Structures are given as C-alpha cells and as structure tokens.
C-alpha cells in the first residue's frame, strides 16, 4: 500500500444493467451508504436499488425559478409602469398579459440553467474539477459500455480487504483501487484547456460575426431586407427613371417657400421693395436675428469690429457711405445671395426675418449718424429733457 496516496474508493465494473441493479441492491443492503453507480445511460429502478433519498436539486430549480419570475416581473413593472411609462397599443402601463411571456421565459431560463449548472458543479466538484474518478480506467469503461460501482473510503463500514472481498463476491469484470489525485494533478488552467477555451471563443465570435454580417445578407436570409417597396434615397425598379424618390414636377413650389427672383446675380439691376414696416416687434425680431447671424462678423453695432477684425478681408462696417446708400432690397439681396466671402443665409434665415434684419440695420445706421433733432425727438418720447 502506498502511504503517500490516499484511497478514494474501490471500483468494480459489470457487464449488464441487471447485474448492476443487483450489485446496487446487495451493496445498499450490506449497509454501505457512501457508494456510487456509474452507467453509460440511465438505468431504470436505480434510485430504489441504491436506496437514495429524493434529490435536493429541485429546491435549486424552485428558488431560481421564483427568482427569474420576480426579476422579470419587477423589472418590467419598474421600467414600464413607473420609471418610463409609455402607452403601447392603448394598453395599461402595467399590462400583465403582455408581461407573462417574458416572465415565463425568464423563469424557465433561470430554473433550467441553474439546475444544470448546479448539477455539473456538484458532479465535477467545481471549481477544482478534480473528481478522483477522472482519468481512471474505470471511468473510461463505464462511460463506454460497462456498468460500474464504487464504494468510497469515507463510508463508515469501509475496510479495504473487506470491500475487496465483498466486490469479488459480486462477480465483477474488473476491480480497481482509486486514489485521490496528487496536488495540482488536474489544474483547470492547463495549456490544453486554455487552448480549448481560446478556440471556442474564436469559433463562437467568428460564427457570430459570420452569421450577423455575412449570412444575413445571403439569400434566403436577406428576404426581410429585399422588400418590394420604395426606400428613401435608394434606387427602385417601380418607377421608369429608376429613382425611389421622384423629382417634383417642374415649377413646383415648396410649401411656405417663395422663390427669390434675383438669386445668383452679383449686381442685380433691380431688387425687391421692403414689404414690412419697422414696428417695434419687427425691430425686436430683427435685432435678435442680427445678433445671432450678423454680429459674429459685422459686430453688435455693425461697425465691423467683431473678433474677426484683423483677418483678411476685414468684415466691413455697415456704416460706410456705400452701405448707407444701398436700398433695402439690396441689403436683402446680399443677405439672401451672399457677397464676396459672405455666404448666402437664405437657408438659415427666413424671408420675414431677413426683412426684419434689414430694418434693424437701418436703425443702427441712423443711430450712428443721429442728428440733434433725432436726440430731441427721442428724449421727448422718453419723457425727459436731459439733452438740452
């Protein structure tokens, strides 16, 4: 007997399921409790023959099933009824019938996965994965075509010679002494296993990548994508010209859009007349839009003194003689059309806002060149006589 090795148990193999049932009955009747049977497939009647108590695994299933049900219900209740309630299909926020399928799925998922996981963990004695029966001749034969019986050394009645004699009486094919493995005999992080893990990861991610990016665009999986319908911005066979989105008929005017007749002309011979009146509201609007769109270059007072001054070309002042001599329509034309480096603002500023800006520019120009009479008039209006 090897003193360094500790005995795990004594194993015996048998040829038929009838023999193993008989062996199990004899063993349990002989008073052994810590023994196990290994067969290549489930043998009916084994639980009774081994005098096993009902498995406790069902409790794991029950608890995890209830956990799954509660997680699903509470999550849906919290997200859909409390935190972010959205009306879906006119159903109440807490729509129990709609929650039941997900609750059911999660219940089944957690219950089954945890049952299988727990079972494997118990069988393999995870996380060490060092069940002494691994890699024995015994395990190789019972996972193939033999039926095996192991009497474990932790049994109270265990005595090596007695057990050996007992097993011999059962007429086994073979008997084998099984020892506990040496330390680190079955490390879970051995290179082979790691290599296996890596290849699994590569296969899984490769398969996922392939099925999501390649497989789904191959017939017949792409049928959902290839639908006989017009897709925006895409060609289509439905129309003769091959366009999905049809061009508007010549001369079509977009809703709320009035075409500008002098677009593109640098020095228009004629321009529009100002259709608006410089009312207070109009000037407020013009001021706001001027601050937003014009002041970044021309400055808040249209002096051309914005932070862009010093660049080439300098943003021009709007108080020059040339600018003052522009008609309202010409300023409007410049905003609409752009001039030199100034781009067109026709897409950002609406027609009415442009005219309001024109009016506000006129206010600025007049304020910069106010006459004495203007000051008197203004003070009068304000109800003071400071100026004189």
């Amino acid at each position, binding site marked *: 007997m090897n003193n360094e090795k500790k005995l795990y148990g004594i194993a015996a193999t048998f040829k038929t399921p009838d023999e193993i049932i008989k062996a199990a009955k004899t063993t349990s009747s002989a008073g052994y409790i810590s023994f196990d049977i290994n067969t290549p497939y489930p043998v009916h009647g084994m639980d009774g023959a081994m005098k096993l108590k009902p498995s406790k695994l*069902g409790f794991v299933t029950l608890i995890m099933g209830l956990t799954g049900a509660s997680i699903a219900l509470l999550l849906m209740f919290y997200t859909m009824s409390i935190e972010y309630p959205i009306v879906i299909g006119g159903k109440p926020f807490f729509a129990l019938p709609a929650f*039941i399928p997900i609750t059911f799925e999660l219940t089944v998922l957690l219950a089954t996965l945890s049952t299988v996981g727990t079972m494997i963990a118990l069988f393999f004695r995870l996380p060490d994965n060092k069940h002494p029966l691994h890699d024995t001749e015994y395990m190789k034969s019972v996972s193939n075509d033999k039926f095996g019986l192991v009497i474990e050394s932790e049994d109270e009645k265990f005595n090596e010679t007695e057990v050996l004699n007992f097993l011999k009486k059962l007429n086994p094919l073979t008997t084998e002494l099984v020892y506990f493995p040496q330390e680190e005999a079955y490390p879970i992080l051995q290179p082979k296993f790691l290599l296996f893990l890596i290849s699994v990861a590569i296969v899984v991610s490769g398969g996922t990548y392939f099925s999501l990016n390649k497989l789904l665009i191959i017939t017949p999986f792409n049928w959902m994508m290839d639908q006989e319908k017009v897709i925006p911005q895409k060609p289509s066979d439905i129309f003769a010209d091959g366009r999905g989105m049809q061009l508007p008929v010549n001369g079509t005017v977009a809703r709320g859009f009035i075409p500008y007749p002098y677009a593109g002309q640098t020095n228009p011979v004629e321009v529009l007349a100002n259709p608006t009146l410089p009312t207070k509201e109009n000037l407020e609007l013009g001021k706001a839009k001027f601050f937003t769109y014009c002041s970044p270059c021309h400055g808040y007072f249209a002096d051309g003194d914005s932070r862009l001054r010093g660049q080439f070309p300098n943003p021009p002042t709007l108080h020059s003689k040339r600018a003052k001599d522009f008609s309202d329509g010409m300023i409007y034309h410049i905003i609409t059309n752009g001039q030199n480096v100034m781009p067109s603002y026709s897409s950002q500023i609406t027609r009415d806002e442009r005219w309001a800006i024109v009016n506000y520019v006129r206010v600025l120009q007049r304020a910069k060149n106010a006459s004495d009479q203007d000051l008197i008039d203004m003070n009068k209006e304000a109800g003071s006589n400071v100026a004189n």
Partner: protein
Amino acid sequence: MSQTDFHYQKKELPANLSKLGILLFVVGAALSLTAFFVDQERAIFNYLVTYMMIVSIGLGSLFLIALEYIAGADWSTPIRRIPEFFAMLLPVLLVLVVPILIFNHDLFHWAHKEALADDKILQGKAPYLNESFFYIRTFVFIGLWSLFFFVLTKNSRKQDETKDQSLTKKNIRFSAIFIIVFALSLTFTAIDFMMSLEPHWFSTIYGVYYFAGTVVAALAAITIAVVKLKEKGYFGTWMTNDHLFSLGALLFAFINFWAYIAFSQFMLIWYADLPEETFWFLTRWNGGWMFISLLLIVVHFLVPYFALLTQPSKMNPKRLKFIAVWLLFAHLLDIFWLVMPNMGTMKNGYVFSWIDLVFPIAGLGLVIFVFTFAAKKANLIPIGDPKIKRGIDFHL
C-alpha cells in the same frame, strides 16, 4: 431484468358498479328529459356540454392508446386496457349525437336560413357551415373514430390469446394513421360543435385548445380508474408508485399545456384588440361569467399545478385520485365555459339553474356503464402484449 413472476387471472368487476352506472344514467336521463320540457334551449346546450365531455374522454383515451403504440412506451402497457375500455364510448357517440342533430336549430345560429339572408359573414362561411356538410362531417368523424377503436382493440384482444407479436406492429401502423385522423377530426369537431356556436368568431388555436383539455380529461378518467382498481386489488403487487408517477407527470404536463394554449389564445386576442375577436371574451366577462372565467384559471391550472408540482405528490395515490376527479370537473367547467355563454339568454351573465347539474349525472352513469360493459369482455391487462413484462417491471 425481469424478476417479477406474473400470472394473470381475470377478476370480474363488481356487479354493483355496473348497476350504479345504470342507476345514475337512468336518474340523470329522467331528470334531463324533464329539463328538456322545462327549458328546451338550455337543456340542449347542456346536453352538448355533456356530449363534448364524453367525446373528450373517449377520443382522448384512444389518442393515448395510439400514442403508446407510436412512442413504444412500456410503462403504460399494463394499464392500456383502461383507455381501451373508455374508448368504447366512441361508437356510442353515433347514438348520442342524434339529439344534437335534431335540435341543431336551437344550438347553431348559422343553421337558420333567415339569419343567413342578410349576413355577409355567414354567407361567406356557408360553404363549410351548412347542415348537410355538418351531418356528413359528424358521421364521417364518428365513423372513423369507431373504426380505429374497433381495429386497435380487436388486435389488442386477439393478442391476449395468440401472443402474436406482429399484431403490435399492425397496431403501430394503424396508430400512426389514426394520429393524423385524430388531429384533423378533433380540430373540426371542436370547430363544428363549439366554435360555430358563435359563427362570427374565429380562433385558429381553438382545436389545439380543445385537444389540451381532451387529453387532461382522458388522463384524469384513466387515473381515477387505475387508482381505484389498484386500491381494490385488481392489479397485482407489481403496480408501483412509478406507474402512478408517470400518469401524474403526464397529467401535470397537459395541465401546463392547456394553460399555455389558453393563455396564447387570450393574449393574442387581448393584444390585437380587434372587435371581431374580442367580443367572444367580453361575452365571457359579462355578469357572473367573469367569476366563472377567473374560476377556470384557478380550477384548471393553479390548483392542480401546485398540487402536482412535487415528485411525491405525483406518486401519492390518494392525492392523485383527488386531483384526477378535480380535473374531470375542471374540464367539464372548461366546456361549460366554452359552450354556455353562446346561449341567447345567457349572453349578459350567468344565471344558475338546476338543469346545469343533471346532464353530467347521466353522462357519468353512461361512462361507468360503458366501462364495466367493455371490461366484462376483456382481460384487465393485455397479457399477450410483447411489452407487458417490461411494463410490469417499470421503475423510474
């Protein structure tokens, strides 16, 4: 691995049982006949409920026999005679269906010519829902069921004497054909006799729904008979709790299946919320029907589910017997819930009447009588079946 010695000696069922069946049937039939003169419409609707209940037990039993042959199950072989006895109800249907055909105008709205005249939907369904085609379907289906019943049981009984294994092979073939016949005929029967009571309504899952209930009812009836016979010592000591467990597990499975199908039907209609579909459920929410609808969930699913959840409970003969009786009642309630709200005067709510109680009495009497009648002629165990040894030695 057969160590069990097995000698079968036929032991007759007590004569009292047959007498009890006749007594129940006569009393029930007399009361039913009275009911018929009191309220003809209600009586014929109740008659339909009991009729469908008998169809469930008979047809479900034949289905389970066929299933055993196809699946090659061992455990149910020793108790196969029980469903065979119950399936004897199928030829009886040929007589039982006659009142329904005679009084079909009380039952079926679509059978009225004047209703058809200004109803586009009924006109569209008329090629299927018309009286002559209905008669043809009914008799063809009952004829097919009876035919398969005779063939399957005749082969099974012949085997008792000849021990001819090729008969099992023959029966497997017949069973395979029967399963297809069964699926189609059961679906159309459910549509004809129950769904067409409300001819404007439709549900594609209706046949499966009735199928789920059918198997529950047949299994429940078989379980009651098996446990009773076991208690009275008609089966030898070979019958262990493992046999009962298999019956209990099947019952448990089909309770869940029923709930799954019932919920699927409800949820799709609830979610789509189309008036042409929802009114059927809304009718079953009017007045007292609401409580019966909710009761159905509790009686047909929740209580038996928890009662049969654990392994020991499926092995406990007493509990199994109780739950089987309970489930027979649950299936009766299920059919009642399917059929009765279609009655003109019951659409706005359930109104209790003694008439609802008398028809099942006659039905129960008939089932007991037919069972004892069938049992008289045959062995209680198919002793010639090649699988009988394995079935008797069955262990989990």
